[in-house]
């Protein structure tokens, strides 16, 4: 639900990073914050617990600049991954324009990935969204784990419709911008 403000000539798009707890969603945003030109980004807001687990959300606005007279901006959000924060996740999905699912490649997180993906479908359905019609990409994070689940196996479990997917090592920034580029281009296309 992008809002185009013809009065202030602004287009704002909301991209939400979803996925199981400790999968690397916040790490994605932190890396983007560190690497994009300071003039193009706002403050990184983290509503986190003392142990740095996301409590409500992280938020990072990134300015694309003025494109053909319209100031174009992406609002990047993460949701808290822990199962019991579902009320918060639902709130953040309100008005979403594109979703990045950050999957954890660790073998003992396979169930958590599946549970989170199911939860994503359910929560979007409550907002009358269908993930199959929404800009959507998947990121297979933590590919540097020695026992990382093979991508083919993750793909079979999490990506039956074959949406664009990217391998990543969030802590080193590998794949972070490939993911962001892909989802933001999909969102732009959905507007045009």
């Amino acid at each position, binding site marked *: 639900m992008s809002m*185009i403000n013809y009065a202030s000539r602004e287009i704002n798009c909301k991209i939400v990073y979803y996925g199981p707890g400790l999968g690397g969603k916040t790490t994605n945003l932190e890396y983007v914050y560190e690497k994009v030109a300071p003039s193009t980004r706002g403050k990184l807001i983290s509503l986190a617990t003392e142990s740095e687990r996301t409590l409500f959300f992280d938020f990072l606005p990134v300015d694309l600049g003025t494109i053909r007279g319209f100031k174009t901006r992406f609002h990047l959000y993460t949701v808290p991954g822990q199962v019991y924060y579902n009320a918060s996740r639902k709130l953040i999905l309100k008005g979403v324009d594109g979703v990045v699912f950050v999957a954890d490649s660790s073998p003992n997180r396979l169930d958590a990935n599946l549970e989170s993906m199911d939860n994503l479908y359910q929560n979007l359905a409550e907002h009358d969204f269908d993930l199959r019609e929404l800009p959507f990409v998947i990121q297979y994070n933590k590919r540097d784990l020695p026992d990382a689940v093979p991508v083919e196996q993750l793909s079979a479990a999490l990506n039956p419709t074959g949406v664009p997917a990217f391998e990543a090592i969030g802590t080193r920034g590998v794949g972070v911008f490939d993911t962001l580029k892909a989802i933001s281009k999909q969102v732009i296309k*959905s507007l045009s």
Partner: protein
Amino acid sequence: MLGALSWSFEEADSHRVDTLLEALLAESGASYALLIDRTGQLIASAGAAPALDPTTFASLAAADFAANEQLAALLGEPNFASLYHQGTRSSLYLAAVAGRAILAVAFPRSVALGMVRIRVKRALPSLAQLFQEVFARPVPHAQTRLAAGWASEAEVEIDRLFDGE
């Protein structure tokens, strides 16, 4: 299509909102007013902006309102129509607008909450009326309004900005 534009805010809407917000500030003595979409996007603002990032402010205010709405539901209330945050120098009053937007008003210690509350209450029907008109209006697809080449130019900027190097 889902995920695409579902409403648009026009020049004339903006003039009406500006007039309403400026009148609200003048009558109440409040310093700053923002109109925020429920998804956290800033629609309009008026007054002497304190040193804050309005984009971030809008996002947090919408989240604040949404979280409180859920708290209201847990208490068996349909919603909390307004919220008040008391500070030592500045305070904040937030009110729901037609279920689609949030009006946030910051005011200094010298201004009484009651005054802000009354003036906001008076401004709400006009704002609600405007939003009902905005949402009732058929939405032209963005393609018909955005200049040709907007999407391809945006993609070039995405590649440049998100180079990651």
